[in-house]
């Protein structure tokens, strides 16, 4: 029973990890928390739904299409909204991101309505390994999320773009002196964020029904994961997401399942009181 819950928790954690990485990259490079991350996830799921249900593409290709479409959308939103506000305070940007969140979520609602939808996928029998019941969806989810994380790791550690991104995140002024174009890095960051969030949207859509509030249900947990790992630290975000996934699922043994987000909220509340820089974060406390 416990092992089953922990397994489910890990899979949930992997879905949360992808937008948490996206959030933390945005925070590192543009220094504001992007509250539109939930709406982006919803829109990603809807892009995949349109490709899957209307164009009858297999889900894998639908996911690829959704990733490309959301990457373009993210870069477009940045160009229209965040770029003109670049030099303003983080508070202005986070309020603007809330505005973006409303626009994106309701464009999805306008096109497809409030009704819950699901992908056209064949229903597979769950596999059994010893006492554990494993859905095919869970295997796909884990495999996809792990490959995405591996790709991000390689990009950040072993490419020129990754080095530049880490440099801008560490010290924008110094990076600028070395000739790194922050706008170009920001554009690539949005591409990566869009791809990751779209994949998470597809995985979330496999896990539960696709409706306009799909992403909203993950917002608190995604932020909690990113904060747990220390905002701006992608590896911490993954760790935070897995921890929260397991903790949230385990908590359903003790408290009603609809209080899952409350668990995340309490986790960040206590963490912020005890260790404000996050589990892995470096000390960056303002007051």
């Amino acid at each position, binding site marked *: 029973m416990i092992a089953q819950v922990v397994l489910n928790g890990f899979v949930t954690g992997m879905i949360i990890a992808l937008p948490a990485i996206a959030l933390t990259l945005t925070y590192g490079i543009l220094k504001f928390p992007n509250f539109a991350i939930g709406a982006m996830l919803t829109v990603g799921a809807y892009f995949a739904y349109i490709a899957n249900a209307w164009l009858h593409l297999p889900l894998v290709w639908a996911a690829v299409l959704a990733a490309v479409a959301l990457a373009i959308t993210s870069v477009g939103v940045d160009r229209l909204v965040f770029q003109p506000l670049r030099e303003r305070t*983080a508070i202005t940007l986070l309020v*603007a991101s809330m505005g973006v969140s409303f626009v994106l979520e309701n464009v999805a*609602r*306008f096109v497809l309505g409030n009704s819950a939808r699901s992908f056209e996928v064949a229903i597979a029998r769950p596999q059994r390994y010893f006492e554990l019941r494993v859905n095919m969806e869970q295997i796909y989810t884990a495999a996809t999320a792990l490959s995405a994380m591996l790709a991000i790791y390689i990009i950040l550690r072993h490419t020129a773009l990754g080095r530049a991104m880490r440099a801008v995140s560490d010290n924008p002024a110094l990076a600028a002196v070395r000739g790194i174009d922050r706008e170009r890095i920001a554009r690539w960051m949005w591409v990566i964020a869009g791809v990751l969030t779209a994949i998470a949207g597809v995985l979330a859509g496999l896990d539960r029904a696709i409706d306009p509030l799909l992403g909203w249900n993950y917002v*608190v947990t995604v*932020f909690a994961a990113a904060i747990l790992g220390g905002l701006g630290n992608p590896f911490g975000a993954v760790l935070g997401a897995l921890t929260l996934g397991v903790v949230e699922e385990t908590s359903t043994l003790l408290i009603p399942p*609809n209080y899952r987000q409350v668990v*995340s*909220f309490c986790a960040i509340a206590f963490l912020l009181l005890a260790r404000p820089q996050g589990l892995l974060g470096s000390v960056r*406390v303002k007051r």
Partner: protein
Amino acid sequence: MTAYLVTILTLVCIAIILGLSLNLQWGLCGMVNFGMAGFFALGAYSAALVALSGAGTLAATVTAATICALASAATALISLRLSDEYLAILTLGFGEVIRLVILSEEWLTGGSLGLPGIPRPFWGLVSEKDYELLFLGLLILVVLGLFIALEILVRSPFGRAIRAVREDDIVVATLGKNVTALRVKAFAVGGAIIGIAGAFHAFYLTYIDPSQFSAIITAYTFMAVIAGGRGSNKGLLLGAAVIMCLIEGSRFLKDVVQVLDATQLAAIRLILIGLGLILFLIYRPQGFAREYSLKGSKLISPRT
């Protein structure tokens, strides 16, 4: 037609009270509250439960204000060592927690069915037909009272101190002010005002359910404060009135545009609120009116 006007004005008044509280928390003190809807629901449900227990509507309003003030103070305290981004996510999380509790604890809140039959203040004093007008009158008095109190507060030493915290808290701390206490106080007073707004919302509708407290409330309150001009209470009156009239007025759209269904119209309204918010932030960050500030010329007496 008069009935409709009274309804709109009542909604505008509640929006103004909400706006005044956000203007204190965010406009003056720089503390983002993304949990407006949650605190509003907390106020409405506290007031409704106290009023339903028969303790009277005044006691209900005071309880709502107190509970919201305490909850706000606690939220502000958690984030006291951190930068504003964390307050934003904590308030958002708090709002979600309130929503989940209201939905799940059916024995207390009626769950998704809500709470019906909430008593109203001064009910039975006038005929049922004129009651709406009386309620509006009462609400206008409350708005006026809060407005004057907040205008005095802005000009008081406390008001100057919290505006200084917004601009640069390190300078304020260097001057020997207790930044934490200032922030917690400002957030708590703002919370109390949201509680009052929640109480009047509950009294006005006499029936509350969780669907009334969606994140839309947070969005249009921010919109009202930004449109009115951050920090300006006078601008806020105008901002809240314009936003509320637009939101309510757009309900008539469905008689004109018949291709779109109700969901699509609701979505368009929210898209417009979001777009408005962004456009104001980019093109007119100062809003309609400017915040009160002491003119330099008033400080130096002119030698004539």
